[in-house]
Every structure is written in C-alpha cells, then in structure tokens.
C-alpha cells in the first residue's frame, strides 16, 4: 500500500510552467483519473509522480519519503508504470517482457505463471511482440508491470491505441487492481473516466481545476470552460447515459 503526496509541486521548462503549485494526495482503494485538455500537464504530472521527471520545486513523496531519495531500483520495486507510447528496439516475446518486469522484484516462476494466467496470455507466451494485436500488447504490458505486484500503478493513457472493447477490458483490470493498490490513470475519454474512476483530478494549464468524485466532475456545465466545448448528458437507455461534447457553433 503506497500513499502518494504532492506538496506545492511546480515543474517548469524554459519559457513555460508545466505544473504550478499542485497539492494532491492519493491513497489505495480508489481508481484516480487525471483528465484535462491537451497540454494541461497530465503526462508531466504522471511522470513526476513516477520519478522520471524531476520535480522543480515542492516535492512528491511515497509513504512520506521524497522520491528523490529513492533509487531507480527501489522505485521499480514499488511502482509500476505503463507509458503512453512504447517502441521496443528488439522483438521480445511475451515471456521475455514478463520476465523483465518480474526481475525488478526477483519474482519467481510461480509469479510469472500467475501473471500469464491472470492476463489470459497462456497461448501467447512464445509469441513475438511484432505479431501481437493491440489488445494482446496491452495485456502483455500490464502483465509485465503487474507481475511484480506494485503497490503503486501509474498509467499514461492506457487506451490510446486500443479499440473500445479492449479499452473497457483494460480499465476493468485497472479497477480491480485499485482494490489493493494506489492506481492513477491519465484519461482522455471522459465517458470511460466517469464510468471507471472513483475520483477525477481535472488539470488546466498546469493547475488543479477540480478534484472531486467522478460524478461531480463529469457533470453538465462542470467541464465546459476547461475544454472549450459544451457538454450535454444524453440518455442511452434507462440507467445508462453518456456525456456528449458539442463544439461551439
């Protein structure tokens, strides 16, 4: 279980402030979504939380300890990270990738077999990365991260290259993981964010515009100014409605 705290965090590059005075707290048991328009700072925040992007001023702590004090190896043992884009230099097979993920905590063959089973990869273990479909790749990457049973899982746009069925499948898996770990996910799809996340942090221009339960954030009128579109709730069938973004006329 990992408690993540962000204290007065500011990250800047020459000529631009990417994150400005953020204060956040993340606890296990909730699936937290980071949403916001392009350039709002979502990816910068998730990379800073993971320790890849140095915090400018302020701090990020995991269980009360500043992440600058953690070595890369210590961080890898606690935190799983799924990037937005992944380009591998070599055509690893599924087993290779899961083994590489397992090595960060010296997980044994048993854990690897469990991860393969849990992500329905039994028939694919010897298959090369280049031969996998988008959905199979997503499951394989998730297995390589989850094999170490990380207490903190950071995911940058998990569905970017997936069709809707696989996006839903992945989010369901992340939600199940959130029951026993701290899970923070960058999301673009507001509809799925509303349906799967317990809590949403809305970022705009590097600042927190809203931080509340999903139902409060994804509500008519709440997002219009941030995204520059008008959102309208549309009833699909009884008990199931969706948010529709309508561009300004």
């Amino acid at each position: 279980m990992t408690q993540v705290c962000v204290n007065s965090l500011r990250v800047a590059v020459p000529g631009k402030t990417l994150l400005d005075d953020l204060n956040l707290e993340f606890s296990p048991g909730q699936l937290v979504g980071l949403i916001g328009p392009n350039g709002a700072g979502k990816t910068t925040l998730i990379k800073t939380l993971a320790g890849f992007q140095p915090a400018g001023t302020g701090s990020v702590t995991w269980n009360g300890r500043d992440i600058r004090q953690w070595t890369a190896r210590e961080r890898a043992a606690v935190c799983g990270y799924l990037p937005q884009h992944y380009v591998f230099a070599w055509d690893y097979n599924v087993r290779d990738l899961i083994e590489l993920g397992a090595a960060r905590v010296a997980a044994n063959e048993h854990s690897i077999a469990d991860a393969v089973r849990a992500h329905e990869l039994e028939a694919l273990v010897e298959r090369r990365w280049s031969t996998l479909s988008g959905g199979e790749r997503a499951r394989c990457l998730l297995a390589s991260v989850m094999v170490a049973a990380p207490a903190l899982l950071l995911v940058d746009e998990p569905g970017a290259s997936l069709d809707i069925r696989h996006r839903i499948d992945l989010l369901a898996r992340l939600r199940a993981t959130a029951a026993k770990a701290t899970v923070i996910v960058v999301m673009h799809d507001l509809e799925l964010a509303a349906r799967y996340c317990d809590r949403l942090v809305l970022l705009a221009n590097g600042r927190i515009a809203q931080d509340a339960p999903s139902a409060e954030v994804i509500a008519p009128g709440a997002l219009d100014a941030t995204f520059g579109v008008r959102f309208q709730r549309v009833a699909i069938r009884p008990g199931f409605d969706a948010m529709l973004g309508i561009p300004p006329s």
Partner: protein
Amino acid sequence: MGCSRLLLGAALLGSLGFAASAGHDWATPAAVFRSLAGDDSLQSQLLITWRYPRILAAALVGALLGLGGAIFQGVFRNPLAEPYLLGSSGGAAVGATIALLMPMGLPSQWLLAGLSFLGAWGATWLVLLVGGWRRGADAAHLLLAGVAIAAMLGAVRSFMMLALSDDTMNLQAVLSWTLGGIQTPSWWGLLLLGGLTVVALAAVMTLAHGLDLLGLGDEQAHAFGLQPERFVRWAVLIASAVVAVAVAWGGLVAFVGLIAPHVARWRCGPRHRRLLPESAAIGAILVVLCDGLARSVLPPAEIPLGLITAVFGGPFFLFVLARRRRP
C-alpha cells in the same frame, strides 16, 4: 533457427579444423591430428609454432568483436550499430597508430592496448555527444554522427601515418595492420589475449540485464529499475575496452561486430544473457574462417583479413538495411 549449442559447437570446431588445414601449404586432416598428437616432424612443428597460435588469436579477436558489436547494438538500440561503422574501432586505430609510430618507452603490447582503449572510448563518447544522445536523439542521428566521425578518424590516421613514419618504421606494416590481420602471437601474447577475453566476457555479461531493459526504451527501462544514462556510460566504457583489445591484436576488422550479433539474435532471440556469449562464439567462427581464407586464397601472398570480412559484411549490411525498410 533454434538456439542449439551443439550446432554452434560443431560450427566452431569445423571452423577451427578448416583454419588448421588452410594456408599456402594446406595440411591434411591427418597431418593436423598428427601434430596435435605430439608428432615432431617439421610440418607439425610449423603448425604448432605458427598456425595454431594464430588460429586461437583469430578466435579470441573474433569473440571480442562479436561481443563489442552486441554491446554497441544494445546501447544504440539499432541492429546496424557496429564498432567499425561508429568510429569506435577508428578511434582505437588512431590510438594504436600513435603507439606504433611514436614509441614511448612502454612495453609495446600494453601501450598498444592502452592507447587503443583511450581512442575507442574517446571516439564513442564523441559520437554519443555529437549525435545528441543526452537530448534523446534517435539511433539514425547517432549512426550518422558515427559514420562522420569514423571518416574523420580515418583521415587523422592516414595523416599520422604519412607524417610520422620514417625509415625505421615500415609504413607497409602499419598499413597492413590497419587493413586488419591477425599476426601469429607469442604464447605469452596469446595467454594475455585469452586472459583479457575471459575478463571481457565476464564484464560484458554483467551488462546483459541492463541491455535487455535498455531495449524497452528509456522510460520503460527506468520504470524497471535502470538508470539509462549511468548504464550507458558504463556500457560504453566496457565496450571500448573490448574493442580496443580486438583492434590491438587484430587491426581494423569490419562487419564482424555487425554480423555476429545479428546471427545470434536470429538463433536465440534478443535476450542478452544468451545473445552475448552466442555473439562471441559466432564472431570467433567468422574470424577463424576469414583468417583461414586470408592465408590460403592467394598463396604465397596473404589477403588482409579486413578485406575479406568487408566482402561478406558489406552485402550483409545492405541485406539488413533492406529488411528494416520492409513494412
């Protein structure tokens, strides 16, 4: 192709057998066996004193070239990366040329290896810095920087050979060394080369897991516990030492560092704990075979080893390039 050690062992034995026979005076298999059994005929003496140490040196140089190529491809994350193409061998050659043309009162083999190492290390860093490695440059930029720096180092080496050689230094000898070639070492020299190769293999094997992680990309490697910048610094240091020893004993031998890891990857996949020793074995086979050809194709003359590896390696490079362009 499976990762059969038996096949590889058979190929290595076959190449050693071929090389033992090959020369401007071919030895029959029976003569080879007789010499190994302790026969003291003149032919056996010549084989044991001249040919076998050279074959063993060729195998060790080949193993080092295979290892060097595998590390370079892993660090640059590109199957076209190779110490020769990236200027690392060229840097080692500049260092070795200084050692050969400007004796400094140190034992020649140590001076040669030491200056080769400094040259290889300096040249590789120059490629990484000019190619924008710290700014996250792609592999193509690094390769182009490597090609340009290799060309410049070639010019520097040629200039030094013209400017520094005198009557006491046989320019032809230095030139033939830069074209690549295994000289018959003394048994002491062979022992030193063997020892260095064992140390190199042990050092290189410590890089295996890091090279695997580096292949996932900087971000994922970091997420799996590697500090890519620090690791690359360490890997380049080890790769430079490996290349320097290979250049000090074998001159400039192109393309072995390209072909060996490629064939190893086809056989065993991309994981470096299998790829590295496999590359060493395939590099050894290639250089032993090519050195055998170098000694036997145009008797009594000898063809430079680098020329033979380039004849095979050039088309192989183009083949790999064409495969990569395929969708």
